[in-house]
């Protein structure tokens, strides 16, 4: 075999790697979460509506739920708000909000003015809870199954498409259209 073909061969391999890289690149900014398939963090945080009460993960055991991380300072959260309201009205599963590093007064007015899609909102003033979920930019939405396992994570504003293709099929047990 002509050993001078070696450089061409190595380049061919490189081209394949780069092509795969391009194919995956829309997801590049969305780093795969190591928490997928693992148990969701246990939490017990003050309720935004009534600080004397706690929002607890223990209360949600045995049910599907959406965990949505948001803040009033976050523009994309505003953009996804209507989608969340729609999801709330569909009454498919409870939506738990995590108000991340926010001002409680602002958060309450926001929900009053724009509508409240959440069954309850937990307040994460220190940011510690969000870190436990591996959150690095709002909004982020997690889907947790009745066994408490995180089965899906969405980065960025929640869209109709994601809701229909990723969340609804998993919750209702219907066959998913692609992943």
């Amino acid at each position: 075999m002509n050993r001078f073909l070696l450089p061409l061969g190595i380049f061919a391999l490189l081209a394949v790697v780069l092509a795969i890289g391009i194919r995956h690149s829309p997801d590049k900014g969305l780093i795969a979460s190591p928490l997928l398939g693992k148990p969701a963090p246990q939490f017990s945080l003050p309720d935004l509506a009534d600080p004397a009460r706690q929002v607890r993960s223990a209360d949600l055991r045995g049910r599907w739920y959406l965990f949505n991380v948001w803040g009033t300072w976050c523009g994309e959260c505003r953009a996804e708000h209507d989608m969340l309201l729609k999801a709330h009205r569909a009454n498919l599963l409870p939506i738990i909000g995590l108000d991340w590093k926010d001002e409680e007064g602002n958060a309450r007015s926001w929900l009053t003015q724009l509508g409240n899609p959440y069954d309850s909102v937990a307040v994460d003033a220190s940011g510690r809870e969000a870190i436990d979920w591996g959150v690095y930019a709002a909004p982020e939405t997690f889907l947790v199954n009745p066994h408490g396992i995180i089965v899906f994570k969405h980065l960025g504003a929640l869209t109709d498409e994601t809701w229909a293709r990723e969340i609804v099929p998993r919750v209702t047990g219907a066959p998913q259209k692609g992943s």
Partner: protein
Amino acid sequence: MLPELGHFALILALLLAGLQALFGIAGPWLGRERWVAAVTPAVAGQAVMVSTAVACLIASFVGNDFSVSYVAENSNTALPLFYRVAAMWGAHEGSLLLWILLLALWTVAVAIGSSGLPQRFAARVLGVLGVVSFGFLLFTLATSNPFLRLDPPAPDGRDLNPILQDPGLAVHPPILYTGYVGFAVAFAFACAAMLEGRLDQDWARWTRPWTTAAWSFLTCGIALGSFWAYYELGWGGFWFWDPVENASFMPWLVGTALVHSLAVTDKRGLFKSWTLLLAILAFSLSMLGTFLVRSGVLVSVHSFAADPSRGIFILVFLIVMIGGALALYAWRAPLLKSTAGFELGARESFLLFNNVLLVIAAGTVFAGTLAPLISDALKLGTVSVGPPYFNPTFLMSMLPLIALLSVGIHANWKRGRLKDKQRMLLYTFVVAAVLGCGLAFGVYYRGKLLSAVGATLGMWIVLSSLVDPIDRWRRGLSVPRAVLGMTTAHLGLALAVIALTTVQSFTTERDVALSPGETASVGGYEFRFLGVQPVEGPNYDALGGTVEVTRHGAPVALLKPQKRSYWVQHQVTSETAIKMHHGSNVLIALGESLGAGRWSLRIQIRPLVSLIWLAAFIMAVGGALAATDRRYRAAGAPAGARAAVAAQGAA
């Protein structure tokens, strides 16, 4: 009107580049003399058209024409005129146009400079350059047209990214690209040689000045980028092993190997296939860099807006160009054989080791840079690579290289005759060790083993490099420019080694929180914080701090770091205040307001850091000297005579 003219000029440039490629490659192949003669006019025409397009775009910026989408994205009426011009290459589309312009200018230079070359060969070189131009022009027109209109026009622009609003923007990209693009010339020479089936010492001699010149520009460009990052970004860092930085560093490493390999091929007709491969590799890495930066496959703070469709186009272009060149290589390289010999201690040996080590260095940087992609493709999960990987692995191949350098430059061709130089080498090493350890342990007190090693090896190169020139001078002999260039470049490298060793070993850095009137003591200096005042700028508002710097009671400087908030893009940037004092740099940057006038400040003392960029500049000057040696300008007769003698010798 102007944007349409520019757009039209680009289309014409595309056609002319296509003709240039067609005539240049098919002309000699089919024996069509008229086609061969038509190449140079095509080159000229393409250059004129590209220049017109660039002029139109700059004019649109200067005239605040916000009906052009690219202008609206990157400029603003409040932007000072200087930056309005430089903003032309401030983002993806415009910087591509700059690329194309520089390629056109290099092509013109080659056309003019190749008057002494055989016409068919020169046509092939220009033809290959035409293929590259064609590809980039097509890419620009198809995916990245800077002349697209905005309807209705924007009332005002989104302003140039504040970090780019700095004199560095005017010089760094043009000079860097000149070097980057310049390796296309070596690539074209290599392809022309492969197409023609002729690769001899003449070819190497012709290619040398172009390659060395491109190398010089690239050295300057990288150094400028590093310097710019240093004083603009405020971290005091000057090299982050960021993918985009690596994208320019890999061609530099391979380019250095190429410059040396060409010397061996020129002088002794050896390493022909290696030289060929290096010429292909250097430009391939340039093109790969272009791909990495604009396709979005890698995370980088430097990358342009990510767009996978652009990535696909460039990848196809890469496959055609590099795959084509490597296929030619597989075809022609087996025919390149030489019967020359040399012994282990000969100059050829040292240059072989030099090139192997440089390519290994480039290989490790390559592995680290593409690791996320490779790991992902091989389904090995995500991996991220930063300085903790690059620093030690880079050192592994570079330390042997700088150690061998001092010895290698004294080795003779074919028979090293190093025995005669043993004593000189030993003496210079001892002196270097004394100086090096003196620097590491004496001047700075805190040396580690690596500091002493780096300083010693650097000093050794200085001393060893100066032995021959001084000897020649004392004997009244002239020093050929090429030798002067080589010595200068090596000296530059030595200084860079010494500077880098010092900076890495002896930098002092502290973050402090001070209220007005309070003093912090760092690295032997005292810093008295005098508070923060609002400052108004042309298109920004700033908070300016004042810090009084003294050493042993004597005043050193009054430094004024700033935090600027740009009006249009609402971005906050930090302007570091830097003062050079006794060879060291004192840096202060503002952190955050901690309330009640109290602020956090970052203070750094970096010894000899400015020497790094001076050293790089010296290296580039060395390259420029070597490239302009008169020997390279003569082509023809001498080569023929030599070939005859060589043929006799081999018989």
